[in-house]
């Protein structure tokens, strides 16, 4: 009797407990429909709301801290078809992952103009945010996290932009997706201050022109930024770090013309900058430090201008693959800084080396022939291989910089060194005295 009573009480308790959830779940679409055009619907964080939801009028959907909208796994969780919608402070999760459907699904699909998506968290979804024919939208301060370790096709992109122009993407954090941000036939967008890591490509432009990429940070992707079949891109003040697979790169410029790559930092990448089939790009004032290959430049590229770039401690600063192209290693009498490996004289003190810098290498031939060579680029044997190459007549001139810039003097942290030496000396003296006693 007592057992039955307890079971009944437990059952009732569970029913009561789940009641608000059911109500919230079934109500979300109705709540949206009940909100007046231009109105604000604030969702509580008490229970998860169940998608999927279609928003077809201008309105604001705002969540308290911890508000979750969970899709039913059959489509997009939120679909925006009207312009002027604002989504703020929501955790959106569980879109469909189906690849047999007519469309690719996302946590948020935007099909209209002038929307604002801000402070969202997106998980467990095929694409994070999908813009389809949607212009003048802003997506900011949003975190998108994928499942990561799947086959490439099994995971969508963090932000997928398709035939959508004049959009702004600012301050987002994207990780473990196929591509962090993918642009397809989408022009004139602004990508600012985003942090993109652990994806296949951090950013991927295809047939997308006049986009601006400023102040972003790419790390631990297979490739940082991939610019393909696009024109007039501006890549400025971005940081590309730790892209280290054999096919990895900080930024890849392929079939991409008339672009500007200026003041970016490339640290610890397999290749900092990979340029192929591209014409007339300006690569100015970038820092390329501790990479295996600074710039891998294929002969199909011509007319690039390299000026005021700073190369330091790269295994090979520049490799020309497939032959020499017609590229320029200085602009307006200013070449590049080649680091401490290339000692230079500047007798007239104008900041420009008195003699041209010429860098020759044998590695280009190996790289042309076999991908596996990238496994050896951090081996100390590579330096000996290059030295031996001088005698075997296989070396080819990779760079001829007529106006190399003098490196600014870098000093050792002398204060710390002195302190260390003094401490060691004092300990040694004390030990000596103890032994003498």
């Amino acid at each position, binding site marked *: 009797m007592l057992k039955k009573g307890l079971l009944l009480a437990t059952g009732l308790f569970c029913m009561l407990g789940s009641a608000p959830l059911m109500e919230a779940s079934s109500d979300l679409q109705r709540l949206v429909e009940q909100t007046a055009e231009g109105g604000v619907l604030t969702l509580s964080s008490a229970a998860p709301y169940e998608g999927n939801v279609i928003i077809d009028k201008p309105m604001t959907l705002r969540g308290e801290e911890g508000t979750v909208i969970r899709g039913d796994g059959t489509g997009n969780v939120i679909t925006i078809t009207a312009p002027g919608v604002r989504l703020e402070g929501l955790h959106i999760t569980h879109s469909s992952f189906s690849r047999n459907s007519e469309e690719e699904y996302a946590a948020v699909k935007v099909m209209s103009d002038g929307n604002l998506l801000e402070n969202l968290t997106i998980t467990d979804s095929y694409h994070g945010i999908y813009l389809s024919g949607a212009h003048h939208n802003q997506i900011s301060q949003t975190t998108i996290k994928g499942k990561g370790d799947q086959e490439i096709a099994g995971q969508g992109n963090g932000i997928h932009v398709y035939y959508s122009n004049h959009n702004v993407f600012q301050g987002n954090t994207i990780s473990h997706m196929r591509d962090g941000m993918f642009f397809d036939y989408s022009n004139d967008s602004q990508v600012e201050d985003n942090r993109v890591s652990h994806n296949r490509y951090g950013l991927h432009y295809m047939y997308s022109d006049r986009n601006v990429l400023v102040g972003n940070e790419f790390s631990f992707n297979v490739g940082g930024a991939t610019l393909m079949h696009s024109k007039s891109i501006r890549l400025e003040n971005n940081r590309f770090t*730790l892209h280290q*697979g054999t096919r990895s790169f900080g930024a890849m410029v392929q079939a991409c013309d008339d672009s500007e790559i200026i003041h970016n930092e490339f640290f610890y990448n397999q290749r900092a900058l990979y340029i192929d089939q591209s014409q007339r790009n300006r690569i100015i004032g970038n820092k390329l430090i501790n990479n295996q290959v600074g710039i891998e430049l294929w002969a199909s590229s011509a007319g690039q201008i390299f000026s005021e770039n700073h190369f330091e401690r790269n295994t090979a600063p520049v490799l020309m693959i497939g032959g020499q192209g017609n590229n320029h290693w200085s602009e307006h009498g200013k070449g590049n800084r080649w680091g401490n490996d290339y000692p230079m004289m500047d007798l007239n003190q104008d900041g420009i080396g008195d003699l041209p810098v010429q860098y020759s290498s044998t590695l280009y031939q190996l790289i042309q022939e*076999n*991908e*596996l060579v990238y496994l050896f680029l951090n081996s100390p044997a590579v330096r*000996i*291989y290059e030295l031996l190459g001088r005698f075997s007549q296989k070396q080819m001139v990779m760079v001829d910089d007529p106006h190399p810039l003098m490196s600014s003097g870098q000093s050792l942290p002398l204060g710390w060194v002195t302190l*260390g030496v003094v401490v060691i000396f004092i300990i040694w003296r004390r030990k000596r005295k103890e032994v003498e006693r």
Partner: protein
Amino acid sequence: MIYIWKEFKEQSRGKGLWLSFIMLGIVSLFLLLQVQSYPVEQGFTVFLISLYEMMVLLLPLLCLFIGSFSIWQEKEQRTHLILLAKRESYRGFLFKKSLAIQVVMMGMMTLWLFVLALPMKFLFSFDVTSFLAFWTATLVLSVIFSQMGIFWGSVAANRMQIVGLNLFTWFFFLFVIDLVTLFYLPAVNYENIKLFSFLYFLNPIHALQIFLETSIGLFPINHMSRLMERLIWLPPILFMLFNLVFWTMALFEGAVRKGRKGNYP
């Protein structure tokens, strides 16, 4: 236990071990100062990788010398006679001696790395898994090259021979193998990549590098070319374990069979 305590006392009285660790310490601190200019999130990985690159250059040489001279000292000072008074076989003696050297080296390395972990914790975004992978890779490197040193200490006839053999081993594993491979690399293709893989990963430096880089998420193995997939046909941890077992056992057995036993039973 007696062997371990004896080894520790001998090593700590000699200057070799302390000089080695002072050297590692100074270089590590320099790296730490240099890496501070990186962002906090990536600085940790950059520091681990830089530190490991430094370890690969220095640690094998230090382990070779410490291992070989520790054995040589037993032979030279004839302290083995006391140790073998209890009817110890040469195999047993060498096993206990190897174990003692390994424990002392691993203990010292662990102590140093965990001391170094403190500034890492404060300066960078510390990741325990990555640090443990680094610690494992460093210890395995130390074990393999210490055992190599023990082998050379056993087979060498005099001090000069030990110095020469140690330097050659270091040069061979760090330079010669890679240099020869670079010259033959164009001949490697999809058909013979398995054989190449076996030879490539038989070098503990290569196996440990891949283990470390994949463990800390630096080398992605989920988006590789078909050629690379065939090269890395086992999980990197297995390449590392294979190296650990193969080299320590082969070198130990080699030292037992080829070692100059002198008056040992």
